[in-house]
């Protein structure tokens, strides 16, 4: 997708205009590359037709990994590697192992999920993102439309559709 270089960029002033605009634009058969916003807009993922994120599943799996590793570690260390009677209990008694198991579940779940998020979103400290309009981190919602993916429509058509959908500006943006 990133191989494409020529975009039309629509600027939307607020989230209500944007949400209606996205529906109109998609209704007109225009494929939207992405919408960049200064804050999360509720319902935007739905009107753009994005599938729900599977990150919660990743978090669950990482959390379960934490649970298993914590239990295995404690049972092996105190139950098998160096058994010791502590407080007259079994070598590997489960109740005192619960706090550490809980903490490691949370730790691995959180770290694993955040790492997954960073990898799938391609976030790296040394990467400069493609910026269609610098105002997308300030107060404007910036819609990028890839001309190569909308070959059936002329640039002027797309700009007209954007304006009709409520965009306050429709600009060209070319990446070399």
């Amino acid at each position, binding site marked *: 997708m990133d191989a494409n270089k020529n975009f039309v960029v629509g600027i939307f002033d607020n989230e*209500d205009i944007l949400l209606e605009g996205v529906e109109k634009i998609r209704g007109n058969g225009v494929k939207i590359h992405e919408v960049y916003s200064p804050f*999360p807009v509720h319902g935007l993922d739905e009107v753009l037709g994005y599938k729900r994120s599977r990150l919660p599943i990743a978090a669950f799996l990482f959390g379960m990994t934490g649970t298993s590793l914590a239990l295995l570690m404690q049972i092996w260390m105190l139950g098998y590697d160096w058994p010791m009677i502590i407080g007259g209990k079994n070598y590997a008694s489960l109740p005192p192992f619960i706090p550490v198991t809980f903490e*490691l579940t949370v730790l691995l779940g959180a770290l694993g999920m955040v790492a997954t*998020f960073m990898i799938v979103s391609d976030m790296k400290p040394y990467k400069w993102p493609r910026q269609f309009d610098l105002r997308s981190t300030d107060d404007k919602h910036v819609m990028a439309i890839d001309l190569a993916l909308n070959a059936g429509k002329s640039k002027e058509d797309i700009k007209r559709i954007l304006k009709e959908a409520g965009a306050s500006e429709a600009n060209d943006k070319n990446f070399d």
Partner: protein
Amino acid sequence: MQVVSGVRDPLVTGGKTVHDVSHDISIQVENPPAKLWYMAMALSLAVLGYGLYCVVMVLWNGIGMWGLNKTVGWAWDITNFVWWVGIGHAGTLISAILLLFRQKWRMSINRAAEAMTIFAVICAATFPLIHMGRLWLGFYWALPLPNTFGSLWVNFNSPLLWDVFAISTYFTVSLVFWYIGLIPDFAVIRDRAVVQGKQLRATIYNALSFGWEGGAKTWMRYEAVALILAGLSTPLVLSVHTIVSMDFATSIIPGWHTTIFPPYFVAGAIFSGFAMVLTLLLVTRKVFKLEDYITIYHIELMNIIIIVTGSIVGVAYITELFISWYSGVEYEGYAFYNRVQGPYAWAYWSMMTCNVISPQLFWFRKIRTSLVATFVLSIIVNIGMWFERFVIIVTSLHRDYVPSSWTMFHPTAYDIGEYLFTFGLFFTAFLLFAKFFPVINMAEVKSIIRHNSEKVGAAKKEEKQHA
């Protein structure tokens, strides 16, 4: 679409627009710091320097430099440890539990509160580490690492070890949660720096923001991450002070051996955490002119949490007293009689006055919406919570089972010096944060602006025109 009740006070005042939010918060990072900031920084560094000297002396000569003795083996160090951990409870409570309860007022205070949490937990961790005496061996004593003893593993049955895991997990997850929140805001500063032609600043903040672009797909994932982190952090916050309380509750010392400790400690932690948040935010708000973002309404809501948690703490104190008599255990009864009537009664009654009586003043609306009263009471609560931990720890220990070993605890200059060390550390870190990081979560505040500030602003204008 968000619907905000017209009955509620607006969360952002002054008719701010989305652009105003970026401007008002980022300008604090972009402008050179004020004279006041340099003065505060110099003071913090001086305190930190003196404290560091005391810490080095203690590490060099051993913890005999402290006022501990054979009977009172835990005193200032563990008091300070529990005090700082308690303070570290408000930040993640605000950002996690209030997120799950959809309390939108958390948005303009969560950033600073989480920063406070992280620094407070660092301060807390220094005390048990230095108490080990030989800091450099701490890794082997506290973590299950292979060692030359065969390997002799750590004792997973001990609440002290649970504490190591609880606090390090709490610190890590809070740090990650805080940083995830900071990422979009770093991108705001980066893009403003690009416009202003500040190349170096743009590069640094781009690296800090991990090349954030803010696409709808990324935001969608970001929101999923924030929600799950909040879900994971909620039991985590409650677990940390529960486990800290078990350091005491699982022992057989009269005065410590009580099942009420976990909920009582958690309520006390939230109580002191909110008090510290108020102390810091009232100053930050004034210095950075954030009156439109951190309004009287926010302060009032935090004061209400202080009344609730303060009253829970009060009920817990009275329950403890009742049970010590009702249990019929003479050792338990004496431990509490000694607290109320013994040589440390002044500490007990300071605790009672500061923690139970003074927050009740917040029932008066005039007091809980007054900045001066809130500031004074927030400091009183912090003092009270310090005394609470001192009372629990020292008064339970200083009257041993054997009367010949009864003694008092007298702190030395090094006990006090190490407490000062953590103050220096805390304020230095907080001042650095306030200068280089956006102190308010811009992305979150922006998401409520349209239905909060702008509409209220427009309605106010209309009212004026009609009048």
